[in-house]
C-alpha cells in the first residue's frame, strides 16, 4: 500500500467517522486521522450546478497582528470604538476543520463585565478536539470610525458620521491542506468582504468568492460567515483587555466550479 493510498484509506475512515458522529475520528492508536480534502469536501453539484459545503475555523488569537502605522486616529490606542481606526491593517490566522467539527455554542455566557450575554461568548473549542485539516489566512483593513466628531467638507457640510460596524474589510484564504515543504500550496479558495459586527447574535456576513486553485480554479460564488462561539486563545489586538477570546466561525459555501 502506498503512502497516498494509505492516507486515502485513513481519510475515508475519518470521513466515515465524521459522518457518523459529526466529529473527526481518533484512530485506534490515538493518533488523529487527518482526512484529505478529497475525502471530506463533497463537491458534487446539485441540479442547478451549485456545490455547497461547510468548514469551521478557529481563529488563533496569538497570530492576530495589527499594524496601526497608517491609522487616521491615535496609533497607540486600543479604544477602537472611540477613535478613527481606519488605515490600520492586520493579519490573522486560523485552524480550518471540516464543517461540524466545532460543536455549536449553546451556553449563555457573559461577554465582558457589564455587557450582554450570548451563546456566542461560550468557549466551545480548545484545539484538543481535532487536528486541523487546513489553514485560514485573513488580512485586511479596519473599517471602524468611532470618532464622534462628524467629518465636514470645506463648506462645513457634514459628509460622514461615526460608523462602528462592520469592523473589517478583508480577504480570506481557505487552504485545504497543511503546509509543508512538499505541499506549499494546497488547493484553496479566496473570499473578500466585510466582517464582524457589534452584536454577536446578529453577525452574519456574505462574502464574495474571488478565486481559487485546484478543483476551484474556475470558481464563482459566495460564502456565508456565521459566528460559532469562541476558543481558548486570546486576541493580541485586545491585549489591554483581559479575556478577549478569539472567535470561531462556520463558513457555508455556495459555488459554481466553472
Amino acid at each position, binding site marked *: 500500500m502506498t503512502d497516498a493510498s494509505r492516507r486515502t484509506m485513513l481519510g475515508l475512515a475519518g470521513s466515515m467517522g465524521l459522518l457518523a458522529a459529526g466529529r473527526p475520528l481518533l484512530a485506534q492508536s490515538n493518533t488523529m486521522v487527518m482526512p484529505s480534502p478529497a475525502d471530506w469536501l463533497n463537491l458534487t453539484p446539485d441540479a442547478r450546478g451549485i456545490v455547497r459545503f461547510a468548514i469551521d475555523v478557529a481563529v488563533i488569537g496569538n497570530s492576530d497582528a495589527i499594524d496601526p502605522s*497608517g491609522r487616521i486616529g491615535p496609533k497607540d490606542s486600543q479604544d477602537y470604538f472611540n477613535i478613527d481606526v481606519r488605515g490600520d491593517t492586520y493579519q490573522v490566522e486560523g485552524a480550518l476543520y471540516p464543517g461540524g467539527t466545532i460543536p455549536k455554542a449553546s451556553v449563555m455566557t457573559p461577554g465582558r463585565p457589564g455587557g450582554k450575554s450570548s451563546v456566542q461568548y461560550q468557549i466551545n473549542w480548545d484545539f484538543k478536539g481535532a487536528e486541523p485539516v487546513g489553514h485560514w489566512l485573513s488580512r485586511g483593513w479596519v473599517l471602524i470610525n468611532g470618532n464622534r466628531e462628524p467629518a465636514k*467638507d*470645506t463648506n462645513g457640510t457634514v459628509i460622514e458620521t461615526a460608523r462602528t460596524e462592520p469592523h473589517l474589510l478583508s480577504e480570506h484564504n481557505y487552504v485545504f491542506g497543511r503546509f509543508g515543504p512538499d505541499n506549499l500550496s494546497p488547493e484553496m479558495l479566496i473570499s473578500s468582504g466585510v466582517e464582524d459586527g457589534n452584536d454577536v447574535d446578529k453577525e452574519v456576513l456574505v462574502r464574495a468568492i474571488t478565486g481559487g486553485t485546484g478543483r476551484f480554479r474556475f470558481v464563482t460564488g459566495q460564502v456565508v460567515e456565521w459566528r460559532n462561539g469562541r476558543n481558548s486563545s486570546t486576541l493580541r489586538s485586545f491585549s489591554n483587555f483581559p479575556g478577549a477570546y478569539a472567535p470561531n466561525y462556520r463558513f457555508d459555501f455556495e459555488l459554481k466550479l466553472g
Partner: protein
Amino acid sequence: MPEAEDLAALQALPFAVEVAGSRARFVIDMAVLGHTDAPDPSGRIGDKNSQNYFALDTRGDSYFVAGLLYPGGTIPKPTRPMPVSAFRGAPPKLNNEVVWDFTATKPIGHHFNRGWVLINGSQPGLDTRGTTVDLPRQVPHLLGTHSFFFGDFSADQLSPPMLIAKGVENGNDPDDEVVVRAIAGGTGPFRFARGSCRQDRIGRNTSPLRSFSNLGDVMSPNYRFTFDLLL
C-alpha cells in the same frame, strides 16, 4: 441566465440595471471622501516623510480610502477647465472642477478602496552588474481593490449586496484618465458575476485628500464606473 430571485434582487437595487440574457450593465457614480484617505508609508522604499510622491520611490506604501456611491448620472460632468493650486504649473483641466458638494442627494452605498502605490519617481534601478532593470514610472499611481456595497450598513445588514473590482488607477492627466478594472466577484445577485468595469473621472468634490495635506487643499476626485457583467 439569472434565476427569477436574482432578477428580482437586481430590480430591488437602488439603481437601474439593464439585463439582457446573462449580461448585465449599469453605471454607478462615486465621490471619494478625502478625510478617510489613509496612506501608510511605513513600507516605502523612498523617504517616508515626504509627500513629494513623484520625485521619490513611493512603492511599498499601502493605502485605504472610502467613498460614497450614487446612481449613475447623479454627479454632474465638469464643464470648466480648472487648475489645482497645490500642483504649481500644471495646466487647467476639466476634471479639476469641483462639481459635487454632497448636498444634492443621499448616497446609496459605500465604496472601499485599498491597495498599494505604484509610483516610482526616483532614479533608475540597477542590478549588481550596473544594468538598468527598472526606470522611473509615474503612472498609473495605484494598484487597488474596490468593494462596492450597494446599501447602507446596519446591525441587521452588515453585508449588503456587493461587487469587487481589481486593477490599477490614476494617471497624471485627469482628462485622459480611463482605466478598466476586472470584476473579481460579488454577492447576492452578483455572486456568480464575472466581467469588467470602466472607471472615468468626473471632476472633484469638496473634501480634501489627507495624502496631500502638506501641499494645501487637493480636492478629492469623483468617478463614474460602467459595469459590464456576465451573471
